[in-house]
C-alpha cells in the first residue's frame, strides 16, 4: 500500500475489499538476488561507454529465422546442442547491452510426443523452425518429429543403439556410426536419411587404424546441408579400469560435397575426444584438457590451432563451450580444474594474433564447484549454466547471466539430483531439457529411480517434469 489515504471516494463494498486485500496480500521480503541483479544492471551500464547500443535481440529482430545447430555426438557423453545466431547487419563494438529473457510464445509444457508408460528420457532434439522439430527418446533412440508446431507428432523409427541423429529439415538427417574392433580398426560411418528417419543408409567416410593397445573409437559428424558435411574419427586409449581416457591414439577427418557418396581427407583434422562445440553452422571448436583447441569457421573442413594462454601446469579444461559474442568474436567458456578439483569458470576471447585464447574477464557470482557441465547460449548475451552440484548425489544447479558471463545469478529452485544427462536446448522457445533423477527425498535411496526428462523455460528458475 502507498500509505496515502485515498479511501474517501470508495463505496462500502470497495472498502471491505480493500481491507481484505490488505490482510491477504502480504508480500514476502524482497529477495536479495533481485537487489543484486538490479545493482549488477546499474553497474554494467555505468561502466559501459555512454554510446548508443543495440542489444543482440534488437539487432536480430524477433521475426528472424533461427538457424539450428547440429553437433556431432560421441558415445562417451550426450552433447548439449548449442544454439546459434547468424549475425545480420552491423554489430556494435565494445560492451554489449544485455537483454532481458525474451518474451516468447508460452510453453508452459513442452510440446513433446505422448509416450505414457514408455521411456521418458529425451536424448536430443531441436526446433528447426516454428513448425518442424525432432526429438529422440529412450535408450533405443526412437525418433519423433512434428511439422505442425508440436500439435501432432509421428514416430519416424529408431536408431537402435546408434548415436542420436541430427536433422537438417523434416526429411534429411544424419548420425555418425563406428563399426569394427580394437584389433582390425574402426570404420567411421555416417548414416543418412532422406525420409525423416524412417530409413537410413550408411556411408563410409574413412577408417581409423587400431593401435597396439586397447582402444575406444568415437566419431563426430556435422552437415551444414544435405550435401556438405564432415566426419571426424578419433580412437581413444583405455585406462586401467577399461574406461576410455582423453588420450587420442589416432585421429582423422573426412569431408563430402555430395551427401556422402565421396569423401576427401581433411588434412588438419583435430582429435575429438569430447565432441565439437558449435557456435553456428560453420564455427566450431574442439578442445582438450591441456588447453589446446582447434577452431573451424567453414563447418569443419579446415581447423586452426588456438591455445589457451597462461594455463597453470596443474590446471586443465574440465569442460569447454563456445559462444558467439555480440561483437562477432568468439568466447571460449571453460570450467577449470586445478589439481583435479574444479576451481574457476573462465571466459576467454581470441587475442590479436588469433592463435591464443586470453582471459576476457573473470565471471562473478557463479559457484564453479557446482560441476557446471553445460553453457547454453540463449542469445542476446544471456547464458545459462547447468551443473550437478557438489553433493552426492549432485543437485541440479543452474545459473544465468545476461552479460555474456560477466555476472551470474543462481536461478534453480528445485533440488533434482542425480547425475543428469547433459541438457539440450530448444532455442526457438527458450527451453532447456535435461534428464535427472528425482532424489529430493533424502531419506530414500534414489539410485534405482528412473531418470526422466525435465525442462525449464525461465532460465532455470523452475524445472518441470515432462509429462510423457
Amino acid at each position: 500500500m502507498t500509505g496515502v489515504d485515498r479511501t474517501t471516494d470508495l463505496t462500502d463494498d470497495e472498502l471491505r475489499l480493500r481491507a481484505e486485500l490488505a490482510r491477504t496480500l502480504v508480500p514476502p521480503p524482497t529477495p536479495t538476488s533481485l537487489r543484486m541483479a538490479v545493482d549488477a544492471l546499474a553497474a554494467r551500464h555505468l561502466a559501459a561507454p555512454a554510446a548508443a547500443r543495440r542489444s543482440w535481440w534488437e539487432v536480430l529482430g524477433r521475426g528472424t529465422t533461427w538457424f539450428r545447430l547440429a553437433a556431432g555426438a560421441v558415445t562417451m557423453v550426450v552433447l548439449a546442442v548449442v544454439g546459434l545466431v547468424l549475425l545480420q547487419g552491423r554489430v556494435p563494438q565494445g560492451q554489449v547491452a544485455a537483454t532481458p529473457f525474451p518474451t516468447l510464445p508460452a510453453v508452459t509444457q513442452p510440446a513433446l510426443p505422448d509416450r505414457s508408460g514408455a521411456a521418458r528420457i529425451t536424448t536430443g532434439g531441436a526446433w528447426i523452425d516454428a513448425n518442424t522439430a525432432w526429438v529422440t527418446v529412450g535408450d533405443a533412440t526412437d525418433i519423433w518429429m512434428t511439422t505442425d508446431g508440436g500439435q501432432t507428432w509421428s514416430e519416424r523409427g529408431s536408431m537402435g543403439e546408434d548415436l542420436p541423429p541430427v536433422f537438417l529439415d523434416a526429411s534429411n538427417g544424419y548420425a555418425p556410426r563406428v563399426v569394427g574392433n580394437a584389433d582390425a580398426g574402426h570404420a567411421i560411418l555416417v548414416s543418412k536419411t532422406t525420409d525423416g528417419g524412417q530409413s537410413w543408409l550408411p556411408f563410409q567416410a574413412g577408417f581409423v587404424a587400431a593401435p597396439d593397445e586397447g582402444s575406444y573409437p568415437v566419431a563426430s559428424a556435422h552437415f551444414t546441408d544435405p550435401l556438405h558435411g564432415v566426419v571426424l574419427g578419433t580412437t581413444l586409449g583405455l585406462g586401467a579400469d577399461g574406461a576410455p581416457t582423453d588420450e587420442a591414439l589416432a585421429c582423422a577427418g573426412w569431408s563430402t560435397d555430395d551427401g556422402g557418396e565421396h569423401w576427401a581427407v581433411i588434412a588438419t583434422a583435430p582429435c575429438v575426444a569430447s565432441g565439437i562445440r558449435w557456435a553456428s553452422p560453420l564455427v566450431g571448436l574442439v578442445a582438450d584438457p591441456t588447453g589446446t583447441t582447434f577452431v573451424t569457421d567453414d563447418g569443419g573442413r579446415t581447423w586452426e590451432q588456438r591455445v589457451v594462454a597462461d594455463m597453470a601446469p596443474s590446471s586443465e579444461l574440465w569442460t569447454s563451450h563456445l559462444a558467439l559474442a555480440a561483437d562477432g568474436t568468439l568466447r571460449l567458456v571453460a570450467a577449470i580444474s586445478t589439481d583435479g578439483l574444479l576451481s574457476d569458470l573462465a571466459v576467454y576471447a581470441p587475442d590479436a594474433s588469433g592463435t591464443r585464447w586470453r582471459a576476457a574477464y573473470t565471471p562473478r557470482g557463479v559457484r564453479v564447484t557446482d560441476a557446471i557441465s553445460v553453457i547454453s547460449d540463449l542469445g542476446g548475451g544471456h547464458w545459462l549454466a547447468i551443473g550437478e552440484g557438489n553433493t552426492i548425489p549432485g543437485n541440479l544447479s543452474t545459473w544465468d547471466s545476461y552479460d555474456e558471463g560477466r555476472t551470474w545469478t543462481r536461478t534453480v529452485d528445485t533440488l533434482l539430483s542425480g547425475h543428469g544427462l547433459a541438457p539440450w536446448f530448444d532455442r526457438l522457445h527458450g527451453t532447456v531439457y535435461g534428464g535427472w533423477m528425482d532424489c529430493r527425498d533424502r531419506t530414500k535411496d534414489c539410485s534405482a529411480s528412473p531418470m526422466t526428462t525435465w525442462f525449464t523455460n525461465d532460465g532455470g528458475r523452475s524445472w518441470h517434469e515432462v509429462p510423457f
Partner: protein
Amino acid sequence: MDDTRLAAGASVALVDAEGPGGTLTADEVFASLTRRQVDAAFRLAWAILGDPGDAEDAAQDAFAMAWRKRSSLRDVAKFEPWFQAILVNTCRERLRQRGRSRVRAVEAVPEHGVSDDSVQVGIRAEVGGALAGLDPEHRIVVVLRYWADLTVDEIAERVGVPAGTVKSRLHYALKTLHTELEGVR
C-alpha cells in the same frame, strides 16, 4: 528533484543528489532511481502474479527493459509511473503466458487478536481465491486500485488504457468478487 528533462548521456543537477557535489550523470540518476524502486517493484509484481519467483523474474525483466528504454523517460520526476507501466506490462505478459486466468491463491495470513481465527482465515482465503480467478486485465486493475491505492487516472497511465476502460474493468471485477464480499459481511 526538479522537473528536468533528461536525455541519455546528459548531466543533470539534483537538489537531493547523493554524495557531495550534487551533480550526477543521467545514468547515475537513473541507476539511483532503479535501486529505490526494488522493494516496491517486487511487492507490486508479487501482488499481481501471486508467486515470489514469478515476481522476482518480472521485476528483473522490467528493470532490464527500463534500462533499454531509458531514453524514452522524458521527465525524471515521472520515473515511478513510467517504470510501473513497464512493470505492469511485464506482469500482464506473464499472466497471459501462463495460459490460464487463475494464479495460485494467496496463502491466508492468520491475524492475531481475532476471536475466531478459523473463520477469518477462511474468508481471506476466499477473497484470495476469487482474485486469482480474475483474468489478467481485471486482476491488475483490482490490485492497483484497492491494494496499491492508485487513482483511476493513475491506473490508466500505467495500464495504457483510457480512464473509462479502467472504470468498466473495476466495475466488472467488483461484480465478479461480489459473492466473496457478501461472505465477508
